[in-house]
């Protein structure tokens, strides 16, 4: 997962790139016996030095949309590099690998990469636990949870308290959740130039964090979305109560009320609040795809993950019709519904028997940037690793 967007690239191992004098963003000519392609380089610390990789399915000239990418970089179909040779065992086309040579063209085309750095800078955003320690903890239970020190009385929730548990161990970084969220919540597509300048509008993003040795790190994936903090830094700074905490533990954002001071966005330590820098349109046929249950936001408005509040309301209505409280499985958030590895679990944290509450109390559970005392409603579960000193 490179997090490069709106372009194709050729992934080159750090050692090979150093040997060939290729820096990230240098356009490289990739030649095979069957054809050539020119693509910007992506230097990867985890690739095998003798291998290069080109993604399939990016950047076909026919699908260039000027609204999103101003200048078409031209078509780049990696199939052009592959020969018609048949694979001996299956008899199918051998279309996964071919021997290539690389040459620098001397031009540059910087890639648009959404993540500024993959180095965690000791901030423990993606945490992991050794297998043996995890097993021990699972047997003995989490050692006593620290009492939360506060000048104020504990917050109480009259009805439900919604929360998420996200298993870093299960996340494979496929980004299906990000796409599901975008479709469910009418999140506009901003295009290459805006994405390159940190103005993408995804409510949910997948982060890749490097762990371990710098030259050959292990990659951990963290889905990051609004943490729906109990002590939310974004809320008290809003001058007009556009951001406030609901009785069900959601961090609500009232679009009608938002003036666009962006103070909340500055004060969110997770940078999950998204601002509408422009009026984004949904030209035909995209308007047909809009979710009628979700507002389309105007320019100048802050937005963010709502924990699919429209689905929560629908689920509560459904449960009320059946004259019973909401139970696990009544409400699935769009990201949860789409996750192929069931890394995301939604539910009522107040109900100790719910899956999400069980997971939230798991010994593997941790909060992102816990030391800030924001008390998120999203619990992450540490990745279990085989060998770690």
């Amino acid at each position, binding site marked *: 997962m490179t997090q490069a967007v709106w372009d194709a690239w050729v992934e080159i191992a750090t050692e090979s790139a150093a040997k060939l004098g290729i820096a990230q963003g240098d356009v490289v000519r990739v030649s095979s016996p069957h054809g050539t392609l020119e693509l910007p380089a992506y230097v990867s610390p985890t690739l095998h030095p003798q291998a290069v990789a080109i993604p399939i399915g990016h950047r076909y000239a026919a699908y260039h949309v000027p609204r999103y990418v101003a200048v078409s970089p031209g078509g780049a179909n990696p199939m052009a590099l592959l020969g018609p040779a048949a694979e001996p065992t299956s008899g199918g086309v051998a279309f996964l690998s071919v021997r290539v040579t690389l040459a620098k063209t001397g031009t540059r085309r910087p890639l648009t990469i959404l993540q500024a750095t993959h180095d965690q800078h000791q901030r423990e955003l993606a945490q992991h636990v050794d297998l043996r320690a995890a097993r021990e903890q699972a047997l003995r239970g989490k050692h006593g949870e620290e009492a939360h020190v506060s000048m104020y009385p504990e917050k109480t929730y009259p009805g439900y308290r919604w929360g998420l548990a996200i298993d870093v161990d299960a996340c494979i970084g496929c980004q299906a959740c990000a796409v599901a969220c975008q479709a469910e919540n009418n999140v506009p597509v901003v295009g290459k130039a805006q994405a390159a300048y940190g103005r993408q509008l995804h409510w949910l993003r997948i982060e890749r964090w490097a762990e371990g040795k710098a030259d050959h790190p292990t990659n951990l994936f963290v889905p990051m979305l609004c943490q729906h903090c109990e002590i939310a830094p974004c809320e008290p700074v809003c001058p007009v109560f556009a951001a406030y*905490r609901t009785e069900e533990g959601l961090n609500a954002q009232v679009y009608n009320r938002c003036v666009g001071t962006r103070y909340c966005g500055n004060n969110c330590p997770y940078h999950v609040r998204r601002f509408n820098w422009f009026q984004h349109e949904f030209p035909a046929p995209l308007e047909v795809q809009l979710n009628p249950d979700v507002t389309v936001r105007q320019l100048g408005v802050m937005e963010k993950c709502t924990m699919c509040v429209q689905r929560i309301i629908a689920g509560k209505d459904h449960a009320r019709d059946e004259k019973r409280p909401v139970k696990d499985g009544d409400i699935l958030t769009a990201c949860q519904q789409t996750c192929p590895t069931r890394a995301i679990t939604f539910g009522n944290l107040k109900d100790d028997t719910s899956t999400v509450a069980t997971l939230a109390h798991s010994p593997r559970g941790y909060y992102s940037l816990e030391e800030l005392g924001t008390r998120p409603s999203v619990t992450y579960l540490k990745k279990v690793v085989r060998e770690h000193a």
Partner: protein
Amino acid sequence: MPATTETVLGVFAYVDTTVRALEELRAKGYHDLTVYTPVPVHEIEDVLERDRPVSRVRLFTLIGGLTGTVSGFLLTIWSALVWGLTTGGKPVVSIPPFVVIAFELTILFGGLATLIGMVVLGRLPRLTPSPTFDPRFTNDRFGVAVHCATGRGGSVREILRGAGAEEVRP
């Protein structure tokens, strides 16, 4: 209606002559004086303030300021309770931030009340100039207008001239 009082104006070029005139007028029992000066002059004020209370402007300031404090707290506390929205896990009525609003309103209301006090007590705005005013009084001349009973004008004129008035009228 026949006038029961008349007004005599003396124009002075110096502070000390003005003060001398004022002292003499007061000694002779003329207390209904209007003194025009281009700048506030301590010596003149000292003579005049002897039988006058301190300006009541400060009362306006006090009442305005207290109104500001009270309305600052009332506005913030009441409006927070209307919807009772929680932000940042803080109590709905959070006094420390409301102190800022109350402070600002104290100053704002106090200042505006002072302005009102000054305007009301100083009888501003004056739509027509008073008959004894002379444009030189905003430049470099001092004026002493004496309001006295009809017939006493002669002695007043004498005092003013004796003290060193440049000009005495009528």
